[in-house]
């Protein structure tokens, strides 16, 4: 099939695909955490219950953790795909 990227380029395209997905997952989760914390702090200050830096710090740490979790899941997915690939290579389907 045309979407079987592996056969044509020896896996280079698929690695490119994986490499471009991992980096942004780490970064965006961090920024989402930071944004949630920042605006939560702002809002809490407005309603008169100021916790100025703490919410930001807490949610930023959570965001970083979420980023690492994303990367971990992504790596697990790649590993699974590779194992499946190795199995297919070791036991080629009989015609």
């Amino acid at each position, binding site marked *: 099939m045309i*979407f079987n990227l592996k056969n044509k380029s020896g896996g280079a395209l698929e690695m490119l695909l994986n490499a471009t*997905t991992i980096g942004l997952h780490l970064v965006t989760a961090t920024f989402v955490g930071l944004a949630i914390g920042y605006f939560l702090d702002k809002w809490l200050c407005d309603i008169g219950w100021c916790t100025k830096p703490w919410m930001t710090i807490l949610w930023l740490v959570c965001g970083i953790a979420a980023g690492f979790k994303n990367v971990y899941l992504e790596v697990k997915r790649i590993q699974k795909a590779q194992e499946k690939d190795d199995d297919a290579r070791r036991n080629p389907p009989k015609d």
Partner: protein
Amino acid sequence: MHQGWLILPSIFEGMGLNIPHNVLFSWFVLLVLVLMGTMVTKKLSLVPSGLQNFFEIVIGGLEDFVVANIGEAGRKVFPILCTIFIYIWFMNLTGLLPGFDAPTANINTNAAMAIVVFLYYNYWGIKEHGFGYIKHFLGPVSFIAPLMFVIEVISHISRPLSLTLRLFGNIRGEEIVLILLFTLAPVVATLPMYFLFGLAKTIQAFIFFMLTMIYLKGSLEHAH
């Protein structure tokens, strides 16, 4: 700012309509796709040829890929996945036509699509699991469930953001490189880049499609 070299916006500006460029060009892509669809389905033959052949290869290949990854459940979400791939692919490729701009080089188009994807996979999660969908957010161990819930919510919100930024950054970057090369050495320098960018734009459309598929797979299967 008036940009005379962009055909469609010039026409619409001449008519006194001020519609954003990305909206205009995505309308154009929609029009092209609808026209192609009607052309193909008007005379379907058992032995495909021409345009029908092309669409059968693309859609058939995508369907095999989706069913191999999600399983039989993938067939019910396949229409939107296929739409996403073909729509983004064509939108990316319009950036290579002279006088046209890729709608995906504007962050609004991408954000709209990413939000649709976000709502859609959560809709399927709720439809499949009901209230039990919350188990997807709680992690494997019960005593760290509150912490996992916060982390999972952040990572779910980060998904549409990363989808948006990846597509926007890649396509916008390619457009800028094309313009820069064109100012350096018109046509001679840009022509070789067309092959590279034709490939890169296809890959970006495929990445968007593949990530959507992975998210849908996650919401369709049971939490573990």
